[in-house]
C-alpha cells in the first residue's frame, strides 16, 4: 500500500499537516491565514463564531473543528466566503455595543482587526443597543460586557488552565451574557487574579486591565499598521 502524504489543498496550495490537526491549525502553522475569533491554539476548538468557515469538498464547515485529512480540497479566501464572514462580523457588531472610538482595546482588538481586513464598511443590520452591565469591582481588571462576543475563551482559559472556573455564559438569545462565579456575581469577589491566563485571552475589550488605558497611543497599536492576516495567531494585550 502506498503512503498517502499528509497534505491537503487550501485555495489550491498544498498544506502539510500532522495527523490529528484541524484544518485551521495546519493552515496557520504553514503561514496561511484563515479568519477566526473563538479559536485559540491553547484551547479545545469551540466552533461558535464561524468566522473560520471554509468549503471542504463542496461542503461548508468550521475549519477550527474539522480534522485535516489527506487530499481535501479546501476553499477559504473566496469572495463568497469573505462576504459571509463580513456578514457574521456585522451581526457581532450590532449585537454588542462596540464603540471603537472610545475603546481602550481599539487597535489591539481582533474583532476590529478582522473588520478592517475584510473591509467591513458598515454594520448593515439594525443595532440592538442592548443594555449590558459593566463590572469595575476588581482592583486590576474591568469586565465590560458591552464588548463581549461570547467566544468563551475566558471561560475555557479559567476552567482548563487556571483551574478556577471564574467565568460562564448564562441566558439565551440576546440575553446571553457572561457571568462570574462569585456569591455577588462581581469579578472583585471571585477568585480571578491578574496573573490568570483568562486575564490575557480576551480577543476584544471585554476583560480589560486597569491603569493601562492609552499608554500605547492609537495609531501605534498591533493592527494599526499591519493586517491581522499577516500577524496570524497571536493574542495578547501588549501585542
Amino acid at each position: 500500500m502506498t503512503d498517502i502524504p499528509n497534505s491537503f489543498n487550501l485555495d489550491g496550495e498544498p498544506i502539510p499537516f500532522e495527523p490529528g490537526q484541524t484544518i485551521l491549525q495546519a493552515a496557520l502553522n504553514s503561514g496561511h491565514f484563515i479568519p477566526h475569533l473563538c479559536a485559540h491554539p491553547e484551547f479545545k476548538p469551540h466552533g461558535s463564531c464561524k468566522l473560520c468557515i471554509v468549503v471542504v469538498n463542496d461542503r461548508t464547515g468550521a475549519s477550527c473543528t474539522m480534522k485535516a485529512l489527506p487530499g481535501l480540497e479546501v476553499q477559504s479566501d473566496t469572495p463568497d466566503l469573505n462576504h459571509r464572514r463580513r456578514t457574521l462580523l456585522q451581526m457581532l457588531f450590532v449585537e454588542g455595543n462596540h464603540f471603537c472610538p472610545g475603546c481602550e482595546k481599539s487597535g489591539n482588538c481582533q474583532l476590529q482587526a478582522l473588520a478592517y481586513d475584510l473591509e467591513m464598511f458598515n454594520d448593515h443590520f439594525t443595532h440592538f443597543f442592548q443594555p449590558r452591565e459593566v463590572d469595575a469591582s476588581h482592583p486590576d481588571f474591568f469586565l465590560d460586557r458591552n464588548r463581549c462576543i461570547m467566544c468563551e475563551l475566558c471561560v475555557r482559559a479559567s476552567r482548563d488552565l487556571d483551574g478556577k472556573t471564574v467565568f460562564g455564559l448564562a441566558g439565551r438569545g440576546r440575553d446571553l451574557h457572561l457571568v462570574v462565579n462569585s456569591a455577588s456575581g462581581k469579578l472583585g469577589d471571585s477568585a480571578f487574579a491578574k496573573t490568570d491566563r483568562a486575564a490575557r485571552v480576551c480577543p476584544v475589550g471585554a476583560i480589560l486591565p486597569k491603569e493601562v488605558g492609552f499608554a500605547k497611543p492609537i495609531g501605534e497599536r498591533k493592527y494599526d499598521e499591519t493586517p491581522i492576516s499577516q500577524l496570524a495567531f497571536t493574542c495578547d494585550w501588549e501585542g
Partner: protein
Amino acid sequence: MNVRPPMKKLKVATTSLSGCFGCHMSLLDIDERLLELAKLVEFDRSPITDIKTCGPCDIALIEGAVCNSENVHVLRELRRNCKMLVAVGACAITGGLPAQRNQRDVGEILQRCYVDMPGAQGRVPDDPELPLLLDKVYPINEIVRVDYFIPGCPPSGDALWKYLTDLIGGRMPRLDYQSFRFD
C-alpha cells in the same frame, strides 16, 4: 491628481447631524487639495457655504447620527435631493458617541440632567423651537438608504480625499489598510 475634471461641476451637499464637526474638520484637513476639489465640485447646502436648504445635488456627505426630529428632517431632505448619499464617520455609520445614551431611557436622562443634577435649572427645556429628541440615537442607514460609507472617527483627510476622488472619478471607492479605521 488622477481625476479628469467633469464636464459640469458636481454639486455636493454636506451636513453635520448629531456630530461634533470632526468629519468636517477632516474635510478641511485635505489642505491645498481643497483648491483642486473646488475645480471639480460646487458646494450646495453645507456649513462651508452656510446655505440652509438643499437643492438637487450629486453627492451628500452626512456626518453625525440621528438624535432628534430636525436631524430626521434634514437627512430626508438630503436623501430626496441627492443622487449619492455618503455616511461619513463613526456616528453616521454606527451611532457613535451620541448613541451612548441608547442604553438609558431618554426621559430619565433629561430628568437627571435638567432637574436632579446639582445646579440644574429645575425643568426640562420645552421651548417649541427645540426639536424633539428621539427615543434612541440612530445611525443614518436606519432612517434612509445610504449608498456609501467612510469609516473613521473622524476619517483622515487623506481617506476622505481618496474616497471622494474615487467617487467623482467614477471608480468603486476603496481605502488602503492604514486609512481604514474605526477609531
